[in-house]
């Protein structure tokens, strides 16, 4: 059967639900000679502040069982340079670009969002309120319900583009944050960012990365991410961009069944930069095999019984 991989995230139409995650795909242009950028559902850029940032010193990553811990520190070229130097090539390559917007204050989130909304070739805004690796921004908003609400509503006022806050899993109840975002006017939510983590070299007794702590990603976090997406799906109506350790097409399907309308892939792209077409093809195969015509027909279709739900709700 013919399957339709296209999805809609608010007013944003994507040709398929497979998206490159922020911080894992540079600005996209780095991969232009390896991957047909227009074949991805979308790419999410590295985080953008107003100003350029150098980030943390190396070592910035350490591998862990089935995962990795990173603290890059949001090195980046800033919103204006991105618009001037990277967007034209992304546009020429036909990429669907979601910008990842960072800020140390609500005003900065709004200003960066305004600059990038005015630039030609931005399809949506992902709000980074969840980076665990810098002290002065992001997570301070993402770990407070009021902060989440305030950032989303401030950005909502300055742009007509879809606004998609990216939520941290480092809270007690991520679904309540998803609801705060929805109430503030978010068009969708991305979840989850990385889990705050730490690795120590026992010989030297030194942390393995320069920032001491960092964010855990990769297959190690996948079941927790699936659970959080499932929880959010029960509570909110807006689309979810689900992520956390997706490494193959089976994982894509699992996230969609749990409640994601589209998925983002990060760490697995480091292992296999040619993964994108494999994920899309594998999703198509699954849908054909299960007679699912559209991706939307699969979203949130996990088969839980009334008794299951009563237990979860308790």
């Amino acid at each position, binding site marked *: 059967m013919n399957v339709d991989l296209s999805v809609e995230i608010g007013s944003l139409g994507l040709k398929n639900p497979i998206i490159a995650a922020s*911080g894992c795909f*540079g600005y996209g242009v780095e991969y232009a000679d390896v991957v047909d950028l227009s074949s991805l559902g979308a790419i999410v850029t590295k985080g953008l502040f107003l100003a350029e940032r150098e*980030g943390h010193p*190396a070592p*910035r990553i350490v*591998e862990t*069982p*089935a995962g990795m811990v990173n603290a890059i520190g949001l090195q980046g070229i800033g919103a204006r340079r991105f618009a001037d130097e990277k967007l034209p090539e992304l546009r020429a390559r036909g990429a669907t670009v979601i910008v990842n917007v960072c800020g140390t204050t609500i005003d900065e989130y709004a200003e960066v969002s305004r600059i990038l909304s005015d630039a030609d070739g931005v399809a949506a805004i992902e709000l980074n309120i969840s980076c665990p690796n810098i002290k002065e921004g992001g997570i301070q908003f993402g770990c407070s319900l009021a902060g989440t609400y305030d950032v989303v509503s401030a950005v909502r006022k300055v742009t007509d583009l879809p606004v998609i806050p990216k939520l941290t899993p480092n809270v007690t109840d991520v679904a309540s944050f998803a609801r705060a975002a929805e109430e503030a006017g978010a068009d969708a939510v991305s979840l989850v960012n990385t889990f705050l983590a730490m690795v120590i070299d026992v010989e030297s007794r030194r942390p393995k990365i320069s920032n001491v702590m960092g964010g855990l990603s990769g297959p190690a976090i996948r079941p927790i991410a699936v659970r959080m997406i499932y929880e959010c799906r029960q509570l909110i109506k807006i689309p979810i961009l689900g992520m956390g350790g997706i490494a193959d097409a089976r994982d894509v399907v699992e996230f969609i069944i749990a409640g994601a309308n589209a998925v983002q892939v990060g760490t697995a792209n*480091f292992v296999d930069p040619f993964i994108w077409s494999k994920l899309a093809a594998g999703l198509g195969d699954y849908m054909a095999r299960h007679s699912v015509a559209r991706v939307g027909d699969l979203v949130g279709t996990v088969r839980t019984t009334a008794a299951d739900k009563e237990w979860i709700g308790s």
Partner: protein
Amino acid sequence: MASGIVDIAAAVITNQRLSEDYNVVALAAPKIAARVAPGQFVMIKAGAGCDPLLRRPFSVFELLRSRQGDATGLSILSKRIGPSTRALFEAAPGDTIACLGPLGRPFTLVEPPAEAWMVAGGVGLAPFATLAELLRARGVACTLFYGARRAAELFYLDLFRRLGVELVLTTEDGTAGERGRVVAPLDRALSQRSSSARVMVYACGPEGMLSATARVAAKHDRPCQVSVERIMGCGLGGCYSCVVPMRNGHGGFHHVRSCISGPVLAADQIVWDS
């Protein structure tokens, strides 16, 4: 696509153990071997699955060619340290290893009468087999300053001798060549060399050896290219893990990604102290 970067499930042709820790794995990877330049690297995933999860960067060591001279594969010089290099040490002929490349910026070559002085420590020998071969074919006089812990860890000396490369060897225990670190004879040789002679210094090895080589090259006012090694996530510029602080021209530094701006970098532009 245009870049020519490919991912090959490369068959292991041979796995030669050089010592208790060092080995050379030959891989059938003609598409990479046909394009790779000295100093470039490949990202290797030794074993499927999640442990280890990420690939590891390796300089291309030898190029393998058919009798007709066509590129058929490449080899990797490895030292057993962690899970990936352990898997490479255990690799058997017929195993397949995912091999992504060629990646990174290669060495900038010189022409006669310029001389090439290569400085290698441990597995830092790897990029110099292909560099020496290419430079010797151009008629460039080559010297290899090569240091290891002990005589048994100085490998492939015959390969460099056959190419006509002059060897200056050091071992930390004095079992071969001069006792001590490789930068000492480099420093003396640079002192003795006429300043009118053009010398390009190429270095690959441990960070301490690289920074010492950079200092010595700067002291003698010689250009120096170093191949750096950083913990690397992707090899393609996506993850920003492998950064090196480089002078920005305003008294500060800028973090460059060694996977795409390097691994070969100008030694005098690196901020070695941070």
